[in-house]
């Protein structure tokens, strides 16, 4: 009976508020390699997230502005150009300046291990390297997102 009610609840509640986690996937800087970002966006979609994708060649200001207008829970930054030590701290600072301290910031791409502590210090909560599975990213987000509700 309770299982039955559960099924009915799931099947018949289109007006029930649903609140998927909202993620911004952004490509800051000047590299044109967005296959990884797109694959991740697609994978997170399949994990039930609402994923806003910004496209290539974003300045830190563009990323912050998109995160603000979309009121996302998570900002995922994909960067393979080597400019991560310049761009990622700027984005983290920009988010803080706009009062978005509660937004979870993650990064992925080609980022040397030696740079991770400085990025963590700047506000990137997790750096995902090559070989990370989509499931790992999804679980990390679910476990660490700080939703204000």
């Amino acid at each position, binding site marked *: 009976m309770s299982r*039955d*009610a559960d099924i*009915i609840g799931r099947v*018949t*509640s*289109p*007006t*029930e*508020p*649903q*609140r*998927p986690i909202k993620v911004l996937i952004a490509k800051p800087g000047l590299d044109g390699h967005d296959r990884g970002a797109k694959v991740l*966006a*697609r994978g*997170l*979609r*399949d*994990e*039930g*997230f*609402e*994923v*806003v*994708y*910004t*496209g290539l060649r*974003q*300045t830190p*200001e*563009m990323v912050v*502005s*998109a995160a*603000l*207008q*979309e*009121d996302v829970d998570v900002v995922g930054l994909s960067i393979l150009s080597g400019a991560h030590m310049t761009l990622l701290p700027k984005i983290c600072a920009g988010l803080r*300046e*706009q*009062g*978005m301290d509660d937004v979870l910031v993650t990064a992925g791409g080609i980022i040397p291990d030696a740079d991770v502590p400085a990025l963590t210090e700047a506000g990137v909560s997790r750096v995902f390297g090559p070989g990370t599975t989509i499931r790992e990213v999804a679980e990390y987000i679910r476990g660490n997102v700080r939703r204000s*509700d």
Partner: protein
Amino acid sequence: MSGGTAGEGTLAERARAGDRRALARLLTEVENRTAAGEQALRALYPQAGRAHLVGVTGAPGSGKSTLVAALVTEARRDGRPVAVIAIDPSSPITGGAILGDRVRMQSHAGDRDVFIRSMASRGHSGGLAAGTIAAAAVLDASGFPLIFIETVGTGQSEVEVAAIADTTLVVQAPEMGDEVQAIKAGLLEVADIVVVNKSDRPGADRAASQLRAMLTVGAQHDRAMGDRPRPKRPDVLLASAMTGAGVAELLASLDRRDVVRRSGGTAETDAAALKRAEAQLYGILAQRVGDQLRAPGRSERRNATLRAVAAHEIDPYSAADRLLALLAENPHE
């Protein structure tokens, strides 16, 4: 420093005062249909009703987002603040979504008078999200005089946007088909303006003249129809969002319609406002009825009725009557 959380006043007050962080937060509350969102809407609704709501619809890949971005650029030349609500579909399986319309609109990032918000359809059919009208009201009350509502990529009959927008723009690509496509009922019928986008591509002029021939004929027939519902006679324009050709003319055409609307309007625009009110009200009624039926004391009988319909033991009309009768009862009896 301009910290959203540190501001004074309610989200609605702060959004109206120009706090973009508060506006974004409020749109989330409205989209999630929270009590806070509802309360804010009650406060904001009387301040809304001023903006020109322009629905932009058309097939996937017809260039809706790029065209909206071009129209925003054009409107910004006059210094007008512009908001965009861009809807993309939610997965019916996982509930997830890719909201990709911003990709075409990023040239406006950093302009605080351009506010772009993506919404997932979240199971709502018809090309919009359930919270779209409410989100538009919030942006309207927050001082955006021009609001574009871009639907999901549509097919032939997702005409809901026409019920909520003041002006409906249907975007067509040059290779949209022949004249028979142009005379089919549905999407093209609700257009106030049809734009053949990608006018830099071959075949665009031909497509526009075919559409004109099929859509704009019949004025004489209209007069003969007297008071019967008559089809719209849309303007057919050519534009290229890529080169910018025709975009200024398109915005001018939208503005002319806005002037008519604001100057007291025609019977047609009154009808649009009534339809929007109806769509909004019925949406809320359906939600309230759903909530009440899920309330403790009723949900058991609601579920039993659903199971009976699923098993074909009772017809859905009798079931609906039964549930309406259930609503009239005191839930605690």
